[in-house]
């Protein structure tokens, strides 16, 4: 079946199978920033924006995306700035979790969140196995302009 979507601002028609999950379709079409972690909605590594809101793409049926807007890391110009902050703070060790975290943090910036406590709560669904989160939190604080 065919679905019409807007990915990163571009209109696209994608050819999908009825059983396919959004994560797999996005990767098949070359959006490699979208990665598979737990495949059950728990780790946040596969995060994309669906009509502007963060969702785990491993838990979204591709057919459901018909007529909707998807944004991946590739479509977020602010991503680079935050990625550099992550690197500065030593917060991308294996780096596997970074794309999901970046998508979600850029979303928080759009919401104008400036309190660290609030950011932490909103990022509860983005797990990282390497950093122990401290470095990430420093980078997030800088990026969001958290008031000390």
């Amino acid at each position, binding site marked *: 079946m065919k679905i019409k979507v807007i990915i990163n601002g571009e209109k696209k028609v994608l050819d999908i199978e009825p059983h396919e999950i959004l994560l797999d379709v996005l990767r098949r079409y070359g959006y490699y920033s979208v990665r598979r972690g737990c495949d059950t909605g728990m780790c946040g590594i596969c995060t994309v924006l669906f009509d502007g809101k963060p*969702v785990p793409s491993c838990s979204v049926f591709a057919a459901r995306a018909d007529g909707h807007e998807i944004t991946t890391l590739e479509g977020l110009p602010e991503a680079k700035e935050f990625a550099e902050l992550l690197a500065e703070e030593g917060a991308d060790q294996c780096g596997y979790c970074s794309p999901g975290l970046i998508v979600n943090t850029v979303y928080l910036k759009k919401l104008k969140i400036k309190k660290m406590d609030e950011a932490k709560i909103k990022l509860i669904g983005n797990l990282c196995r390497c950093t122990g989160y401290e470095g990430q939190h420093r980078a997030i604080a800088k990026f969001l302009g958290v008031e000390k």
Partner: protein
Amino acid sequence: MIKNYFRPSTIDELSELKIKTNGYLFSGGTDLFVKIRAGAINTDTVIDTKYLENEELKIENKKLFIPLNTTYTELRKFIKANQINPIIENIVKTIGSPMIRNRGTPVGNIANASPAGDFVLASYLLNASVILKPSSKKIPVEEFIKGPGKIELEKEEFIYGIELEILDDYKFYFEKVGRRNAMIISIASIGLLIKEDNEKIKDIRIAFGSVAPTILRNKEIEKSLIGEKIDKNLFKYLANEFFNLSSPITDVRASKEYRKQLVYNLTLKAYINLYEKVVI
């Protein structure tokens, strides 16, 4: 493997598809797709309810109506804006992560009928009724849920919405115990609502999750406490009663002995938090 995906837009169309295909309904899909991929459910047809033309979230006759397809995120906004049932906010904010709450729905939680379902617990506490279509039947949630994953639904029926009481001037407590402090499936949980009249009980509702095949609530015990003075002894009595009534299982998350002890401890903890001092 899924071969067919349907998107009905009317109640009759949905109902006919359900009869014809035996397919699984989904809204958020946060339960269904996890189960399909884990091999726990095998189906060739899924029916997307999101395109159904359904009513809105609303307050009517002092009841809160939550239709299918309303997400937790939408519900939280509505509860805040209308300043009703603050216990719902306390419960819903512990469900999954913000991302899961952007997709998951209270109706999906009820249909899933897990004894660990946090919204199932909320609906027991607020004397919810489940509204089915096309029959328009209205069934109290504790009759609708028959056991873990078992619900009272005819072949042609689906859940159209749930209706919950709106309560004013109740003290409340909710806690869920899990193996970590975020995104937890409960090992045991407690929800308590209490309305006072001169330090005595005017109405009390107490429910536990994950410690029996369905949510544990006992209306007889609740009724027998009306007019009683609220003190620690009363809660010790309650803790004992529910310790005995609970019938948990041992699973990967915890043993049944630990769960029973939690029922006792959480009951006393609820009292201490509400009437003595806040402890974490």
